[in-house]
């Protein structure tokens, strides 16, 4: 697939053209620059590509924080009405780590043994345009977990900065169509992206042996180290809500004036109610057992079942943890302590 070029000054026209065919979503500025969020756009106005990452990862467009599974009327409770279709969408400005997380979601939600029709529908109706990272943040560690600042996982088209233009790298047929109107890039342009990618990789020095750690974690369930690791944790759950790979959810009913809906909403393994039985018995009754479960899910259980780690190194859990827990330190401590 031929790499193409998009002049930055043409972004507005590019977005407007996309918006004729589909709903376009992009990181949108808010008063707090750190708090960009994916929102609908029709041109370049409001799009923020200066901020490294949106506070909420792009997962919210595929597994919304709260979504209606179906509606019902109380006088005929079993006659349920499924939710309607969504329009075709293009999401612009996705960072490679957040996109890579969708590939991990696919393993859970597009499992042939139990397909999730809501997730599948959103995935199939959405094209993803990524923007490569040339200047990773201080909490970024994608390279340590199999990612790359210029990574292409789950993307249809990757934009790589080469000054006043982007090199557009089509990765799928969908991506090729999105970039079809742009002129082809030259060899020098491609070389420039290689140079920038290498420079970005060099900025991320955290490189533990996580394959080896996954093996060590196999026998670490009863180790006393979990107490120490969990001591600062207040089980607030922010790491799970902001994590691009956390996908646990709750299902509840809401009803008012004879109409209601079954709602799926994000939930967190850090909350005690998450696993508590109706009898009162709780398999994970303490903060330590819950932090252990989250860590083992990401670095032992998921890789054991699916292969890759359930972490893309975006660093949100590090930046936003109110107790100052740094997942990189956790992984280093585990690597150093476990045999």
């Amino acid at each position, binding site marked *: 697939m031929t790499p193409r070029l998009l002049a930055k000054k043409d972004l507005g026209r590019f977005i407007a053209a996309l918006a004729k065919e589909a709903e376009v979503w992009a990181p949108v500025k808010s008063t707090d620059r750190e708090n960009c969020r994916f929102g609908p756009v029709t041109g370049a106005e409001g799009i923020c590509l200066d901020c490294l990452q949106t506070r909420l990862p792009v997962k919210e467009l595929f597994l919304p924080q709260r979504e209606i*599974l*179906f509606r*019902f009327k*109380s006088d*005929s*409770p*079993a*006659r*349920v009405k*499924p939710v309607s279709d969504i329009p075709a969408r293009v999401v612009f400005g996705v960072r490679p780590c957040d996109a890579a997380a969708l590939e991990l979601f696919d393993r*859970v*939600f597009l*499992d042939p*043994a*139990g*397909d*999730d*029709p*809501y997730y599948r529908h959103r995935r199939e109706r959405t094209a993803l345009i990524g923007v490569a990272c040339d200047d990773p943040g201080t909490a970024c560690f994608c390279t340590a977990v199999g990612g790359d600042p210029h990574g292409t996982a789950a993307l249809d088209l990757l934009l790589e900065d080469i000054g006043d233009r982007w090199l557009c790298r089509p990765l799928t047929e969908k991506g090729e169509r999105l970039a079809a109107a742009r002129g082809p890039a030259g060899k020098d342009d491609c070389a420039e992206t290689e140079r920038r990618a290498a420079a970005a990789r060099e900025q991320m020095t955290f490189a533990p042996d996580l394959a080896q750690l996954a093996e060590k974690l196999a026998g670490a*369930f*009863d180790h006393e180290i979990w107490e120490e690791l969990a001591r600062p944790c207040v089980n607030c759950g922010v790491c799970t809500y902001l994590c691009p790979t956390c*996908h*646990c*959810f*709750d*299902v*509840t*009913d809401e*009803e008012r004036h004879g109409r*209601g809906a*079954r709602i*799926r909403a994000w*939930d967190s*393994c850090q909350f005690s109610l*998450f*696993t*508590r*039985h*109706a*009898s009162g*018995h709780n*398999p*994970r009754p303490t903060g330590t*057992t819950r932090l252990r*479960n989250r860590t*083992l*899910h990401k670095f*032992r*259980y998921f890789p*054991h*079942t699916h292969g890759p780690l359930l972490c893309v190194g975006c660093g949100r859990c590090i930046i936003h943890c109110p107790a100052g827990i740094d997942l990189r330190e956790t992984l280093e401590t585990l690597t150093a302590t476990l045999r």
Partner: protein
Amino acid sequence: MNTPGRPPLGNPYLPLPVRLERVTVENDARDLKTFELTFSDPGLREKFTFVPGQFSFLGLAGVGEAPFGIASAPHEANLAFTLKKAGHVTTALHELSPGMELGLRGPYGNPYPLHTARGRNIVIVSGGFSFTTLRSVIVHLMRPDRRGDYGRITVVYGARSPGELLYKDELRAWEALPDIDLTLCVDRADGDWPATEGLVPNVLREVAPSAKNAVALVCGPPVMLRFTHPVLEELGFSPDDVYLSLENRMKCGIGKCGRCNIGEVYVCKDGPVFSYRRLRELPGEN
């Protein structure tokens, strides 16, 4: 019957409408009721196939849903579930009367290994109200056209008091039959039921079913399980021939909502029935 049943619908979150046909109060405390259901769409009963040990979600619009083991046998006309009034879903379900509609999703999970147990003796050990899916097993095995497929059937089933035993009429009928060895036990006996006094693991030791060519199917509260394993080991059961059914809180039933895991397995889709050998490999988190 060797393939577990799977939900007949495309969208796994949409419940199938079912009608409540009959409610039976099972115990003196009146907090255990058996609900017999039929599909509002008769064509769905044909498509809804399951093997004993599988579970379904029952729900009420506006209240929510929760998972329950299927207590009826596959050949019985009505689907049956025995529910203890405990949380908000079961409390609401306990208020229902026959004729009302509710929603059902399923069947889910892996059943008891009845297919591979053909030609073998079956030992069933259960305590409290978890007897439900094992009732499904017993009724399934006792079917005249199937009874010859299996050897001896030994059942040890216990509850706190005689009034807390489930399915009393059936228990009485089984006690009178020659081709099932049923031992009932209670913590405290009273006048109107001739049950042995004693805890399930101790009574199991006395009954001492032979492990030779036998498979043990076990379901009960965690404390019963803890003391039953050593007895089965004493009796010579290999961990490959002991199967347990587990419970955990769950929301989806299809391995996505993330809460019913024990280590890397999900109780909903990798269980709820596990061999004791498999269970021993998992973290002690249940």
